[in-house]
């Protein structure tokens, strides 16, 4: 135990003396947490709409002003013809074209049915899909308004569908992203720096000096893990405070539960960093390998794109990453207020990760070759 104390003392001195490392540990995450959620916004809003109004009737005017006031669309201007509107699509000034045929109002009343043409730039499928479905909803609304006016006596025959959005009633994308981004930041800081730190001792040669001392394997590993575990805890706490003060996200669930899960997660993550370090001889190698895996972890973690939509093999990859479970649990506890019984299974899996990764790393770390 006394040996461990000396190891920790040395580690903390080195960390706090490293002028390059401190900003990476404490300032970079803060800046990223302030910028990333502003940038990482999948909210489909501000869809640019090119309008071709061949009709110029009062209906077409009413429809366009209804679309304009919906808050989702930004009308970029009137085009005289479809090719002209296409130019706007090509230059990405517009995302969707709406074309109102000539004599729209007249035909609608006379014939009882009339088409409206939509054309969406579908290279970005999400935007095209959600954008045109918003438009469809607005059109349907507009349609029933007209119907009500023309046929006031007819009762609405459809089913009255009310929808409500739980846990995030204003559909604020940041509420979804901030907890996930916080996980990624803690992962980057602790995973990367822990791996690099150990490899650095290898590169410089000090690890050999430690290896000829009576320091035990577990003491050395604990001496490396505890400081970064504490840093992870501090970073996470700073992040939670920013989430609260800047983004107004107040965890619904139990904070002790959250920190309990975090502490297990950090052990698993540090085990992963340790594992990488045992397979690398230089910091550069460790960085390349860590970088490769962290990219997979981030992409597959469900941070941006839900794991539910993935094919089976994608789900398998996602489930093999400790990051996925923590992002899930973060969102569950912070946004939904899930309790212990709800996160029991992910917690057990995370514990398994911690045991396997650390066991593997300790097995691989040898004082004697």
């Amino acid at each position: 135990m006394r040996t461990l104390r000396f190891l920790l003392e040395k580690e903390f001195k080195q960390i706090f003396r490293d002028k390059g490392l401190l900003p990476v540990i404490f300032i970079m995450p803060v800046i990223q947490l302030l910028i990333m959620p502003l940038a990482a916004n999948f909210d489909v809003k501000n869809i640019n709409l090119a309008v071709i109004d061949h009709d110029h009737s009062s209906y077409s005017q009413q429809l366009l002003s209804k679309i304009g006031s919906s808050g989702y669309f930004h009308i970029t201007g009137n085009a005289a013809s479809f090719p002209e509107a296409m130019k706007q699509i090509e230059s990405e000034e517009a995302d969707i074209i709406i074309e109102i045929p000539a004599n729209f109002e007249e035909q609608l009343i006379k014939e009882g049915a009339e088409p409206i043409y939509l054309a969406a730039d579908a290279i970005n499928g999400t935007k095209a899909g959600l954008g045109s479905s918003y438009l469809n909803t607005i059109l349907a609304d507009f349609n029933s308004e007209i119907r009500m006016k023309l046929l006031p006596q007819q009762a609405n025959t459809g089913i009255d569908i009310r929808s409500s959005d739980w846990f995030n009633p204003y559909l604020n994308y940041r509420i979804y992203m901030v907890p996930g981004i916080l996980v990624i930041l803690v992962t980057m800081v602790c995973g990367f720096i822990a791996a690099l730190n150990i490899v650095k001792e290898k590169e410089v040669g000090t690890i050999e000096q430690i290896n000829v001392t009576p320091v035990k394997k577990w003491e050395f590993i604990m001496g490396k893990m505890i400081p970064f575990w504490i840093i992870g805890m501090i970073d996470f706490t700073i992040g939670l405070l920013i989430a609260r003060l800047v983004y107004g996200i107040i965890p619904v669930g139990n904070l002790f539960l959250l920190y309990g899960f975090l502490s297990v997660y950090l052990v698993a993550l540090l085990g992963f960093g340790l594992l990488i370090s045992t397979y690398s001889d230089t910091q550069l190698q460790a960085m390349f390998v860590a970088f490769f895996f962290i990219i997979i972890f981030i992409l597959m973690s469900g941070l941006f794109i839900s794991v539910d939509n993935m094919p089976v093999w994608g789900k398998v990859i996602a489930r093999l990453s400790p990051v996925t479970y923590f992002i899930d649990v973060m969102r569950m506890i912070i946004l939904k207020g899930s309790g212990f019984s709800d996160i029991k299974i992910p917690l057990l899996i995370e514990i398994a990760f911690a045991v396997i990764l650390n066991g593997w790393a300790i097995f691989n770390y040898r004082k004697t070759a």
Partner: protein
Amino acid sequence: MNEKAITCKGLTKRFGDFIAVDNISFEVNTGEIFGFLGANGAGKTTAMRMLCGLSFPSSGEATVAGYDVFTKQESIKKNIGYMSQKFSLYENLTVKENIRFYGGIYGLTNAELKEKGEGLINKLGLHSESKKLVGELPLGWKQKLAFSVAIIHQPKIVFLDEPTGGVDPVTRRQFWDLIYDAADSGITIFVTTHYMDEAEYCNRISIMVDGRIDALDTPANLKQQYKAETMDEVFYALARGAKRSAD
């Protein structure tokens, strides 16, 4: 009970087809300064790493401070000091902090740490530098400090791997004074070097060629045996026959 600091019988290390250390046998007596010589790539460092418990021998047997190198590595580590070719103190810790750290992990008590630390700083004349980062010291001082730290826990044996590489002659002289002091206090010294004048300072030396020990005796006897004036000539006579090229 055991007056031999190191015993070594048929010690061999293979890396695949390559035999780095080929069946070497020797003994080092307690309290002596044992020079371990050889050209680059002759296998000195590999042999030394096996004795320090950093690497497992492929075959053969050896004991260090009475402990077996296969089974008692952790006990060996309690009884030895080691100073590697590469400078291995923490450059971003101060002189004092390095002393405290290494003393601490060798289990010195706080009182011992304080006393030894101060004694060491006084002896090296590092008073005004004690709060400086080690990285800022000149190489010669770093090496002297590294040696002092390697024996801070008064080990039975200290292993020095080319401790004076790249150091000026004056500092080398001072360094050897430190080695003699340590030997006087009862520490067995096991040292590799490329400087033949340093070889003369040793009680006994061995010369490794292509993984084997081709000569082992006192410097005086070796010179006589090879009819040489200086150790340099002895070394040339032996190393000329080497098949392995220097790295």
